[in-house]
């Protein structure tokens, strides 16, 4: 310790106890004496390196992961195609903590390494580590072509495998519509959102944003696939990006795994399921085949079917809440109960929970694992959006002025796609918000991948919907991250729609 440091210590002592100023030289001597007695300890460099190596082995250096899980399989399974495939499947089972394959392929169960189970994990990064969160700046006008349509994300469809929620990127303004075929500027008729809740105090000026980590598992097993067509081992450093396999039997399933995104979905293997409309050639036939509202099972029965499937296949939903049945199909204003259009598939959502809070999609519905139920067959027809819960976390500046949030909520929040006929004045009442999360998708131009971000948001429950017309939204969502808020403030109101999307 230098003389300067001794002086600093003495200054600190004076600040704590002013009476010590009378004993300066004495104090200096005492501190010098203590310093003098300090042994000059140096860490053994070899020990330092060895400990580092041990920690890396225990906590997952990439090379060690290969030793533990992948290359060993490669070695065990040698050169046989079928075995290599089984090896890949086994790794997926490890990743998801899912015993699904065990039951359908009759592979002997094995112990899931604790480090690879589907635990919620996050790595804390510095503030603003994900760069700009603005969706529009990178997606811009090109999104106009797909406005109101899913952003092409597989594995998040509703029952029947259709659609997905994806990101609805804000338009850069009405100008973006100029010259675009099919784009219309809607008339100025939209609901009037009225806040009927209490005043809310927002105290945190920085909050956590999560980014789901895309998991890339390099599998060096290509060389094991020998079709006699080409030497696959010539493709150096290749990795398996996706796997799709099917159960070739009645009521079989098709399983799709995306290693790049760390996601998995299970779908009915359609060719092995009954096709009730396949022999219909006219409308009368279709009419006869239509389901009636009385054919639909009670919510409890739908949940029981889903739960049983999940339990039987060991699907890990540790980070998800209780399932909720999506009964939006019943919302068909002006249609008699007996005349309601009944879908063949009904969805349930097991909502994702982060720190005990729900995650919402921009449409206002809860985000999570979706399970489709085939109403005719009373069987699970698909499971979508199973993903690893591995995140990176970073703090971002958030809004503390509630009036600013309210201003955006009263414009419809993130979702502004409602229009009524001219002359109608529709009122929507929104209540006191709760602080939950919102999922947004941002396309990384550089990596050409979609990034899933979970941002803090206020969820305003809709307490009163318009008396007339079709209105499906249950919540108004306003993100708390300043950058996203600003983006929504600039969003055109109302948003231009594509003719096809209306």
């Amino acid at each position, binding site marked *: 310790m230098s003389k300067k440091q001794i002086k600093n210590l003495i200054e600190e*002592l004076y600040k704590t106890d002013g009476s010590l100023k009378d004993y300066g030289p004495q104090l200096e001597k005492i501190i010098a004496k203590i*310093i003098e007695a300090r042994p000059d*300890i140096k860490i*053994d460099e070899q020990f*330092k390196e060895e*400990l580092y190596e041990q920690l890396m082995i*225990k906590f997952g250096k990439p090379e060690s992961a290969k030793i533990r899980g992948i290359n060993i399989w490669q070695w065990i399974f040698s050169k046989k195609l079928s075995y290599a495939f089984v090896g890949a499947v086994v790794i997926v089972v490890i990743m998801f903590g899912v015993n699904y394959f065990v039951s359908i392929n009759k592979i002997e169960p094995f112990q899931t390494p604790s480090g690879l189970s589907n635990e919620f*994990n996050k790595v804390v990064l510095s503030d603003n580590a994900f760069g700009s969160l603005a969706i529009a700046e990178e997606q811009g006008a090109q999104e106009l072509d797909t406005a109101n349509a899913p952003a092409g994300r597989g594995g998040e469809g509703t029952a029947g495998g259709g659609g997905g929620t994806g990101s609805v990127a804000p338009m850069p303004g009405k100008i973006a519509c100029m010259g675009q075929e099919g784009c219309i500027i809607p008339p100025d008729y939209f609901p009037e959102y009225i806040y009927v809740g209490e005043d809310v105090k927002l105290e945190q000026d920085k909050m956590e944003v999560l980014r789901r980590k895309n998991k890339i598992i390099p599998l060096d097993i290509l060389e094991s696939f020998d079709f006699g067509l080409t030497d696959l081992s010539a493709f150096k450093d290749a990795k398996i990006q996706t796997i799709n396999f099917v159960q070739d039997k009645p009521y079989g399933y098709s399983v799709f795994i995306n290693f790049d995104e760390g996601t998995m979905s299970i779908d009915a293997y359609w060719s092995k399921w009954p096709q009730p409309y396949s022999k219909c050639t006219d409308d009368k036939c279709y009419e006869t085949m239509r389901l009636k509202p009385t054919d639909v099972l009670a919510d409890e029965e739908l949940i029981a079917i889903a739960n049983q499937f999940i339990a039987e296949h060991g699907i890990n939903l540790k980070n998800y809440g209780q399932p909720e049945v999506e009964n939006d199909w019943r919302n068909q204003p002006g249609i008699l109960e007996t005349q309601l259009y009944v879908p063949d598939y009904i969805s349930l959502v097991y909502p994702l929970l982060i720190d005990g809070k729900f995650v919402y999609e921009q449409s206002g519905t809860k985000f999570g694992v979706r399970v489709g139920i085939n109403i005719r067959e009373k069987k699970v027809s698909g499971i979508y959006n199973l993903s690893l819960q591995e995140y990176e976390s970073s703090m971002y500046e958030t809004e503390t002025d509630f009036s600013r949030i309210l201003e955006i909520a009263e414009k419809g929040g993130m979702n502004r796609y409602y229009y009524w006929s001219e002359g109608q004045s529709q009122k929507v009442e929104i209540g006191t918000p709760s602080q939950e999360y919102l999922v947004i998708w941002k396309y990384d131009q550089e990596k050409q991948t979609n990034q899933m971000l979970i941002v803090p948001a206020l969820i305003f429950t809709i307490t009163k919907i318009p008396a007339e017309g079709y209105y499906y939204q249950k919540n108004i969502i306003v993100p708390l991250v300043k950058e996203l808020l600003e983006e929504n403030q600039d969003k055109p109101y109302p948003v231009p729609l594509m003719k096809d999307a209306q």
Partner: protein
Amino acid sequence: MDNQEQKVFSSFYQGNVEKIYRFIYYKTHHKETAEDLTSQTFFKALESMRNFDSHKGNFSSWLYSIAKNTVIDFYRTKRSETDISDIWDLAGKEDIERDSEYKEQLEKAEKYLKDLKPEQREIILMRVWGDLPYKEIAGIIGKSEANCKMIFSRAINKLRKEEVFVLIVLLTLIKI
């Protein structure tokens, strides 16, 4: 761990391992024991990383707290005495391994600091030997920064008074 995590971990390790080792060495006076307890500290830290709450303190303090508790656990399994937090607290040290290299120097320090309370001594060692800021010390021992400063100043003042006392006794003896 992916490459990014590996980089973060590597920098975390390089930045802390030597400090933690010294901190433990000052409490054990024995190279092999200090190495063993340093290893345990890092393994415990990485295993319980999820329990770290950044709102309750900084990461470095959290790591030192693990090191401190690891040393306490070590002495608790060695001795039946309670309230032993490090080698300085042990009455008889005959059965405890100590390095001969620094023995003389450490005994001198022990003699000098022996009349201080364990907490006073610990803060002096962390502040003067370890060069830890008060904020970090506060996080490790679970007291406020102001309280730590007060304990430090009282400890130094006590040493000053003892020196004066010894001087007076010596002068009196010379006169006699």
